[in-house]
């Protein structure tokens, strides 16, 4: 998002006093700069892949794929990953990573579920539902903030901190429940509204995910908080010298990731009515894949929420599409794996050419 800005105010003069002359020539072709810019926007490439997939499935299964039902299904399946992906985008832009999200989601769901069980169960009232939502959000945010503090102040690599968090959060959730998904973890009130409810034909889950995406996409692209996130991922030392409180910012970013994992827990409970303790072990990989497919650099400094949206929908479209055209959907894993490696390879190449210049 931040990388796409209209081409206004093009100064008439070419190179200035400190600008060296061959700068323009070094770019090679004298192509119009708008085109060149568009080609360098990483979202464009992933968007083209997504569009090609949609076109392919629409043609391969006419009248079957591009139906409202399919689109709704795809969007509902993608909603939770999208919410997690938005948080992960921030984390990855700071050159960090969060492997713990699946476990944090489970922990938040278990905390909320346990409260629900003891305060009315399936028939719990709206008061209980509200408290459950708050519990899930607070547990997620607190866990994320804790990991952020360790990353920021103790200088432990985020990979290790969140790998530890992955095990610890899941362990605590299993201790609390004895390893079994408790019954009546979600109130019917929650399931009938957020879970199955629709507004003008659009599921609430999708609306919620879209709202979260929009808000945090704008925060990343247009605010000081977003700029500092990019700056820290780009050059932490320079950010510190510029007076940005790098540690504090990292804690906020990891707390945001945790908060959104907590929100994901609420959405999961609403949607499936159970905590699914064993069902989230690969959430982290799916979400990181989506973020990277969306053009966010694992080395930090670059990325966008818009890219993540596209990155989330590529696997979602693939799996639905493959089912529709009657191909084993396991091919999805193969395809996503190949595209993922290709995406990171391109990112690496770009980085290398940049460093040469």
């Amino acid at each position, binding site marked *: 998002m931040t990388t796409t800005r209209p081409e206004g105010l093009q*100064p008439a003069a070419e190179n*200035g006093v400190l600008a060296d002359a*061959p700068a323009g020539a070094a770019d090679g072709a004298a192509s119009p700069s708008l085109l060149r810019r568009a080609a360098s926007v990483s979202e464009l490439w992933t968007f083209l892949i997504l569009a090609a997939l949609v076109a392919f499935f629409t043609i391969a299964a006419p009248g079957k794929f591009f139906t409202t039902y399919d689109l709704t299904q795809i969007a509902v399946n993608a909603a939770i990953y999208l919410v997690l992906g938005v948080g992960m985008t921030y984390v990855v832009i700071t050159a960090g990573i969060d492997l713990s999200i699946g476990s944090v989601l489970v922990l938040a769901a278990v905390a909320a579920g346990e409260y629900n069980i003891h305060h009315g169960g399936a028939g719990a009232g709206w008061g209980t539902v509200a408290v459950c939502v708050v519990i899930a959000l607070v547990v997620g945010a607190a866990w994320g903030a804790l990991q952020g503090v360790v990353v920021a102040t103790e200088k432990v690599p985020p990979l290790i901190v969140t790998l530890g968090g992955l095990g610890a959060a899941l362990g605590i959730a299993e201790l609390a429940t004895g390893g079994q998904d408790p019954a009546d973890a979600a109130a019917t009130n929650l399931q009938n509204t957020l879970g199955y409810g629709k507004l003008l034909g659009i599921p609430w889950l999708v609306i919620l995910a879209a709202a979260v995406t929009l808000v945090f996409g704008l925060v990343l692209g247009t605010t000081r*908080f977003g700029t500092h996130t990019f700056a820290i991922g780009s*050059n932490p030392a320079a950010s510190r010298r510029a*007076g940005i409180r790098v540690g504090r910012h990292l804690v906020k970013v990891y707390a945001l990731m945790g908060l959104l994992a907590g929100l994901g827990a609420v959405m999961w409970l609403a949607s499936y009515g159970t905590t699914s303790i064993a069902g989230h072990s690969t959430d982290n990989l799916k979400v990181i894949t989506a973020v990277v497919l969306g053009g966010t650099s694992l080395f930090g400094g670059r990325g966008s929420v818009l890219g993540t949206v596209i990155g989330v929908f590529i696997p979602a479209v693939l799996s639905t599409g493959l089912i529709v055209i009657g191909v084993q959907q396991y091919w999805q894993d193969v395809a996503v794996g190949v595209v993922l490696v290709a995406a990171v390879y391109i990112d690496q190449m770009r980085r290398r050419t940049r460093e040469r*210049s």
Partner: protein
Amino acid sequence: MAEPLLEARGVVKRFGHVHALQGADFTAFAGEVVALIGDNGAGKSTLVGVLSGVLAPDGGEIRIDGAPVRFGGPQDARRHGLETVYQDLSLAQDLDAPANLYLGRELVRGGLLGRIGVLDRPAMRREAVRAFAELGVTLKDPSAPVAALSGGQRQSVAVARAVAFANRVIFLDEPTAALGVVQRARVLETVRRVADRGICVVLISHNMPEVLSVADRVEVLRLGRRVASLRGAETTIEELVGAMTGSLDRAADPAPSAQVASAPASPATDSAPGPGRPDAEPRTVGAAGTTWAEAAEATEAATPARPATPQQPEHQRAEDEEAR
């Protein structure tokens, strides 16, 4: 006689056992270009780190316009109008030039949007283009990430940032080290122009001809102390190198002005900074307050480790320089 704009007195900085600064002094006046030179390990970067708030000194004091100040971090120094152009430029490569110019002090919109931190990009861009133009820099595309710019342009972004916000002092750490001949000349031109606006430019450099071509005054650090303060117009490369390596000390008489007296017989004429005359060392070991081992640690570089004698840095010349 004007008061020094920025002054360091007896600054001490230790890193573990390494005494990087052992009572270093530094003086800078408004509107002048001061070069800070010294061999590797002499303490230049440490001194600039202390003066720009990045490092906390272990002793001594810093004065701005005669009033003692204490920096809790680089942002404190910036608040006093002290800006630094770091050797690595300290730019966020993935952000565009306006964002880098305003890094850490972004402009926000008015009203509620500003309250939640929504940036005023058009204003930042406008101001950035203006700030660059003031330095004679035109960026072809102000919204391109800094990584896409050439080395010279990147340099100019870093310099423009310092110039735009500094109202007292700019530290330039090896500003031309990575530049070609043409860009180098232009950076030096810029340095001169900035100083003419009444700002003090502190230039840290290894390049002696460059120092002599642009600096009004040269302060020489050796072994964590100021050992000389010379006028740029009246000194020579031989003299500078002599002061840096300490080889002039042999010829020096106890008078403070000896440092700046030309010493044609000095053996320094052939010496580049580097391993030098160990024969000079034994004579003065123990004469100074520090032990030889201490001093050797502090240099950690090729300079012959010779403890600095407790000579007084030469202030007289500095004060002739009429500060505006």
